[in-house]
């Protein structure tokens, strides 16, 4: 995980850049003193720290447009930032770039129940949207674990998921429209309350583009009625294989649970020591399955899933009797990250997705890798959609431990791709997985993605050093190489 070498010609102009931006924007919008910038030296990928040249906090789309135009005209790099909760370094600052922060665009603009949508500014937190529509029984479905802190603008940039996405989709499936500012400072509307847009699905390509294509300045999301009833099952299995089989059979039987979360023994032990969630201590794997719908439906489905679990050798199976118990089941899973903090001071959270049937083999190989690298690992797993979160435990104070953890993480992600999966299910590529992109994509694949980047940002000013291991010059990527005189179909008459 290395940031690109800063451009000395930009660094040399720092004073002029700061004063230029300060003159352009209202008082207090540009932060450039060393002490204040300390707050902005990393996102949730805390292993990499770098102060930006300046942090710029505009209050509206016009100010964002002005800042982007300034940066384009003065050849300054830009790192967009929402709440700074990226786990992949999506908003890790650059020494030769400004941090463009959406925190002050924090208003909910319109709640429209007739059209079942909410229009909000990008700095509004994910959870605040659900809270704002709660009184009428609605919610916003994608629920990344950082939902209390993470911003909806960041969710759009990262195409964030959550524990309920097998049934309800991820950000892109719940997004109706955005206001979007290009590097040229042009303010565009992509989609709207009706959802679809004519022409190419630019809304779809911007979603999950990790801040490399432009800035999101307004977001319209679909809100939906909360299910009438929700219950969860807490199930202990004698092996990961048995738990995996129960998950597969549940889905094969036609049931799509709202959530299915699997934890291995290391995680369960850490969680129990941390918060005593009441998880079965004799189990090798603990599964939480959540069912939602109408009351009769949920009761019936709980019965069906329980039967499948028992048939697969479940050693314990308990359905939540009330809301308090359901929340207690979840309290352990939600505490998994802090709980591992009791075992080791630092933790690297990986995020590959695999075909579900590969779970036992992948977990077995991860335990072997754990021995090879000499670091402990705890596994939590969004079992319904195959998204694996191995938590690699290390101690940054021990020389070489961080490097070992990174190498271990890279081995896990290579393994995910090897078995037919992908590098990242919901955290994004960012800085963290940038250099692993060639494991999944060959040169032609990456070239096509980079050409899309060129369509939006030909000078590569937006978030350079993220996602792509090497950003080729757009002129080179756009060249058409004609194999002159080598017609594949010489028999075809030429017109």
């Amino acid at each position: 995980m290395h940031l690109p070498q800063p451009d000395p010609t930009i660094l040399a102009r720092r004073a002029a850049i700061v004063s230029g931006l300060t003159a352009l924007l209202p008082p207090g919008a540009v932060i450039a003193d060393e002490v204040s910038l300390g707050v902005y030296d990393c996102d949730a990928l805390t292993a990499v720290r770098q102060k930006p040249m300046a942090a710029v906090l505009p209050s509206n789309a016009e100010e964002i447009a002005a800042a982007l135009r300034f940066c384009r005209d003065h050849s300054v790099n830009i790192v967009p930032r929402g709440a700074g909760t990226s786990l992949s370094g999506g908003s890790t600052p650059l020494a030769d770039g400004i941090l463009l922060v959406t925190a002050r665009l924090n208003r909910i603009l319109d709640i429209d129940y007739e059209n079942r949508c909410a229009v909000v500014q990008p700095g509004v937190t994910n959870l605040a949207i659900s809270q704002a529509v709660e009184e009428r029984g609605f919610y916003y479905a994608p629920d990344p674990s950082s939902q209390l802190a993470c911003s909806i603008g960041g969710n759009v940039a990262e195409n964030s998921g959550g524990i309920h996405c097998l049934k309800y989709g991820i950000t892109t499936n719940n997004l109706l429209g955005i206001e979007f500012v290009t590097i040229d400072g042009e303010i565009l509307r992509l989609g709207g309350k009706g959802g679809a847009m004519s022409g190419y699905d630019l809304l779809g390509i911007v979603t999950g583009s990790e801040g490399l294509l432009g800035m999101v300045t307004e977001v319209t999301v679909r809100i939906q009625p909360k299910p009438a009833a929700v219950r969860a099952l807490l199930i202990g299995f004698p092996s990961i294989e048995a738990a995996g089989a129960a998950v597969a059979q549940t889905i094969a039987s036609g049931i799509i649970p709202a959530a299915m979360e699997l934890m291995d023994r290391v995680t369960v032990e850490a969680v129990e020591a941390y918060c005593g969630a009441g998880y079965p201590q004799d189990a090798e794997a603990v599964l939480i399955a959540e069912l939602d719908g109408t009351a009769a439906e949920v009761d019936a489905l709980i019965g069906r899933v329980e039967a499948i679990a028992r048939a697969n050798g479940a050693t314990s199976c308990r359905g939540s009797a009330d809301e308090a118990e359901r929340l207690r089941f979840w309290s352990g899973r939600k505490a998994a990250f802090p709980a591992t903090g009791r075992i080791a001071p630092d933790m690297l959270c990986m995020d590959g997705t695999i075909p579900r049937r590969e779970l036992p083999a992948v977990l077995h190989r991860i335990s072997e890798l754990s021995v090879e690298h000499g670091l402990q690992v705890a596994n939590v797993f969004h079992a319904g959609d195959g998204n694996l979160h191995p938590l690699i435990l290390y101690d940054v104070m021990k020389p070489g431990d961080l490097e070992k953890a990174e190498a271990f993480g890279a081995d896990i992600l290579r393994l995910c791709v090897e078995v037919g999966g992908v590098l990242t299910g919901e955290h994004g590529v960012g800085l963290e997985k940038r250099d692993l992109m060639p494991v999944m994509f060959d040169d032609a694949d990456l070239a096509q993605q980079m050409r899309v980047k060129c369509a939006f940002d030909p000078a590569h000013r937006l978030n350079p050093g993220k996602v792509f291991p090497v950003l080729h010059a757009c002129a080179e990527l756009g060249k058409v190489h004609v194999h002159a005189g080598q017609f594949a179909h010489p028999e075809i008459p030429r017109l």
Partner: protein
Amino acid sequence: MSVIWVYNAQEAAAAVQDSLADGTSLALRGRATKLSLGRPVIAERTLDLSRIAGAIRYEPEELILTVKAGTPMSDLDMMLREHRQMLPFEPPDLGHFFGTGERRGTLGGALGADLCGPRSFKAGRGRDALLGFTAVNGFGEAYKAGGRVVKNVTGYDLPKLMCGAFGTLGPLIDVTLKVLPAPEREDTVILRGLTAPEGLRLLRGIAGEPLDASGLAHISGELAQHLEGVLGVAEGLTAIRFEGAREAVEERVQTLSHRLRRAGARRLGGDVSHDLWKRIGNLDLMARENGVVWRIVAPPFAAPAIAGEIGPSAAQYDWAGGLLWLLLDEAPHAHANLVRSVAARHGAQATLFRAPEAVRAAHGVFQPLDAGVDRLTREVKTAFDPKAVFNPGRMYEGI
């Protein structure tokens, strides 16, 4: 016009190389069932993709299906039925509507044309089901994007761009889709005699309740009269579909029927329900009427106002008003200025879905783009197809 038949990505890439070498363009074709959708294409050669067909990998327990893009929808339906699964986005069969008969189109065509059905307001469109693909670009290179798992954010989401691009970014070769279990049961509750504004108000209310309806449509009397048997009455038909586990469907139908009993709610069981929604999705009722057909995607609340201002001779509303199908009298201008200005005023997107070729050529098919979006759209086209080899002009002038 000469036709090139290709069997795989390499041959398709070679055909593109040939076009680049002699500066010609290619009209893409699957089973030629949707040629009248979009602006007419003028190209020197046709690239026939219908031979790139067949299953590659079906993993029902993973809810994942990888097939060649030229696979006919009828073959796909058979594959899915065998495992009691379905495509979430319910792509319609428009053979009757477009007059291409029983011949079903291809999956690649359905994705390229962004065809989707009554369930899409809830389960998403083709863009939401397409997880990954291989394709050939206008540089004459095969490449891949996305992945073969349901949850993936690695790299740009190129599958979104390919859906609804009408082949203008190049042919899809292999596609990986998310599939869903087919519902154990489906039932529909219907009401007769409501006006469109009344029916749509009811449907929007139901969409805002935790009833999890999977179809919310209102059909004007002019169209409803074409239905068979007792359903074929010339008055508005408002329909609410429920799909899922037995217990769930039963409970929801009971709840709604009880509430609407005074309004004369009736219940349609599995087969009758299934048939009704097929007719709605396939535009069967409109197929019987002459005239131009507009497809408008709108904020649901705006639907009655949009229809009121345009004044169609018949209408079918889907997605609780989020999707309008309006039938208008034949006219050389297809009422394009009126429809597009009304749509723009209400934040909606209008597509001229059925009209004679000359009308589509003269007045265009898709909602005009704002200047900034238009510029970006052209940049994106260039990023995939710099020499404009694929389907020139199918979407807009030059795209």
